[in-house]
């Protein structure tokens, strides 16, 4: 058992944060401390959202208030910057005192691409926490080699933590 445990020791946690699903950074940070694993936060500024905000009649229907509010690109960008900043503060407050290595990347691409890029850095095994997923929910285990973009999208949409055993090839 001891050797088996050694084999699956998580060295890195890749946590996705989306503007619409900020999730609970504290819970993820707590998990990183417990696992003594490096944390890589991916704050993905959804390209679709930015495109939408740039449209001339872009408007948002608030949930659950049902209030209709006009959206503009600069306001959405400001909101995303503020979200990223508060996320950075939360992770720093939780992990700096515990001397856990962490970083937060703000990317403007699709979630699958951002995760794929992170996996390509070669850390293994890693724990991937999709945006909005409960970090302590039951993990799925996949081999990195088996992950294509479609599989990755499906995993991210399923919103369940995934243990990735080996880095897959860069695409």
């Amino acid at each position, binding site marked *: 058992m001891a050797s088996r445990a050694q084999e699956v020791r998580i060295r890195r946690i890749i946590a996705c944060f989306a*503007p*619409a699903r900020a999730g609970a950074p504290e819970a993820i940070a707590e998990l990183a401390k417990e696992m003594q694993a490096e944390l890589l936060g991916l704050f993905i500024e*959804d390209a*679709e*959202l930015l*495109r*939408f905000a*740039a*449209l*001339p*009649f*872009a*408007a*948002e*229907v*608030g*949930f*659950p*208030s*049902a209030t*209709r*509010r006009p*959206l503009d690109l600069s306001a*959405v960008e400001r*909101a*995303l910057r503020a*979200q990223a900043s508060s996320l950075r503060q939360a992770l720093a407050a939780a992990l700096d005192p515990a001397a856990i290595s962490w970083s937060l990347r703000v990317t403007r691409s699709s979630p699958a691409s951002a995760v794929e890029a992170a996996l390509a850095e070669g850390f293994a095994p890693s724990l991937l926490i999709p945006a909005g997923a409960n970090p302590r929910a039951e993990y799925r285990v996949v081999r990195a080699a088996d992950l294509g973009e479609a599989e990755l999208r499906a995993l991210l949409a399923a919103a369940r933590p995934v243990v990735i055993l080996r880095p897959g090839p860069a695409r």
Partner: protein
Amino acid sequence: MEMIPPAPAHAGLAPGELRRRCDPEQLGFATTAELEPLDGAPGQSRAAQALEFGVGMRREGYNLFAMGPEGYGRHSLVRQRLEAQASRMAAPADWCYVFNFKAPHRPRALRLPAGGAPAFKAAMARLVEDLSAAIAAAFETDEYRNRHREIEGELSERQERAINDIGERAKTQGVALVRTPSGFGFAPMNKAQDGVMDPEEFGRLPPEDQKRYEEQVGELQKELGDLFHQMPKWRREALDKMRNLDREVTRAAVNSLIDDLIARYAALPEVQDYLAQVKEDTVEHAAAFRQAKEGEPPTLFGIPLARPEGAEAPFRRYSVNVLIEHSGTRGAPVIYDDHPNHAALVGRIEHISQMGALVTDFTLIMSGALHRANGGYLMLDAVKVLTQPYAWEALKRALRSREIDIRTLGQELGIISTVSLEPQPIPLDVKVVLVGERWLYYLLHAWDPEFAELFKVAVDFEEDMPRGAQDDELYARLIAGCVRQEKLRALDRAAVARVIEQQARDAGDAHKLSVRMQALVDLLREADYWAVTAGREVVGEQDVRRALEAQIARCDRVRERLQEHIVRGSQLIDTAGSRVAQVNGLAVLQLGDFAFGTPHRITARVRLGGGRVLDIERESELGGPIHSKGVLILSGYLSGRYVLNKPLSLSASLVFEQSYGGVEGDSASSAELYALLSALADAPVRQSLAVTGSVNQHGDIQAIGGVNEKIEGFFDLCKARGLAGSQGVLIPEANVKNLMLREDVVEAVAQGKFAVYAVRTVDEGIELLTGVPAKEIHARVETRLAEFAERARAFAVTAGKKPWRREHKK
């Protein structure tokens, strides 16, 4: 000063008549240790019978008023009788206050059998503990979690499905549903139909397409908004389902626990009803049992705050405030409240400070004396109840309504309008015994119409008991009882005899014994102290004597100072020689607990006038009404005895010389008459004698009070100046039975150095004082008054008018 003829042969009282001794040889014991203590209160048979009746009579209004002076054992006798009766009665019910779930500001009173309240309180505390565990456990089960998740899932599924439906419908129109940070939006899809159209691409569209997209998006937004408006209703439905689920789960956990308790209190429907309400309330407030531990302090911005004492805790509503309990007690309660103010009688509602505000609840209701005495007896000092604001009214209201209604004074007076508690009144079944002085009883009877209704039984305490042949022995047993109770050294029989004599002196009667228990116990304690000081194991007669001397020595500074004034000539009192119209009267001064006699010079002046005897004390407003009455009687005596066929043409004045305070009482009226007669008859009065006694219009000498102190007062002065053998005091014969004179006075009389004369009439007195036969005195007075009348008549004829009448009218 004239020469006085020798006194006529009028024998003074024999030494044996001056003090009734208690012969130690007649007491059949060596020390009080051999005596059986007396059970009961001697001389108080009337009070004891009244007590017996009042205590046993359990009817409305038969409360008692034990009246008599302080120190006569009222409290101890009453308490003794009450405790005897109470011990034969059953212990009363326990009472507690609990939360009223229907009206929280009206706490509910619960009656439990004696000793049952603490057990009920413990059972409720245990129940809350059990409920916490059981409810928490019930919500931890997989069944609950699954059902809860199911409801939550159903709600989110319903919401997602509805949103997705709109999204799908939008997609068919070439519009994408986009998730935004705070909601959702709609945007035209790109050509590939897999994402949002670029703004540039949108800009290249024909205006009519752009407009069409805009309209479609607008409609979809409206549709989505309408959907969102429905969602609170769905959430409410889900919450109702969850609430019902919670109730169902709680009820399952609670039922068995509370039903067990309800079964234990099958004989108490009120308690069962309360527990049924507890059951319903716990179901409604199950969340409190599932929340974090009660002990966690509240926080403000993460900083822990000190929880104010008594702050509302979730389970406080299920606690039990045991107001009164009788576990381990036998018999009914007998309560004496030394400080019977309003709150101490009917109970109070306390408040605690919570975040700067005063708050209260049913656990802060405190019992009063009426609660503690309920089912038994309550003893109160009448004067204390009457002097505490609203205490008397509260006591009467409780007795009248036969229930204890706890209301604060603020509520009672209507001066506090904030919301407070109105605890449910508790039925009252108590017998109240008020202890007070007689004047208070009669005042209440006269001025408070409710008093007679509520206090029907008067317990009147005697101040003395008869001193018959067997009573000295009986009293010795009373002394033995006090000695034992106070854990004092035993008294030998000589000491007992001395104490008995002192008690007769205290009663002011040779044939009575004082039952002033406080004075008796004080004397015994002090005699014991002196015995200890002298190293004696048994208290002897000398210890009692020393205790008495010390008592007097501690109090007689004023007496000594007054006598010093007389001896040094500052106050003029003659104790030798003779003088016309000047008599030594005697007065008693009471200073605190100590009374002593002191002589006063009484003088008279006479002249022609309108038949009026002028009381200078009264004119100067120093004489009291009884003294004035005594002086007016003198006029009656003169006008009824002398010159009956002529007007009484006398103007006389009487005065207490060197008196700077008030004079009250008529005990000097005989002395005043002797001074008048001496003035009218021009007969000198022996200054070696002093006089006390009142007189009536027929010239009979009547009894007065304080005879012993008066005789001793004059004796002390004569002794200070040197007893010559001619000195003495005239007292009314009716007072001979009161004589319990000091032993040194009796000894002086036995040696012929002092005398006490008992007189029945003015004639006897005037003969003793002047040495002139009464007949001759009367003849001289008659002649003098006839002269006055004749001169007055002649004067009236000469002047043609009656000036003295005008003078009189003034």
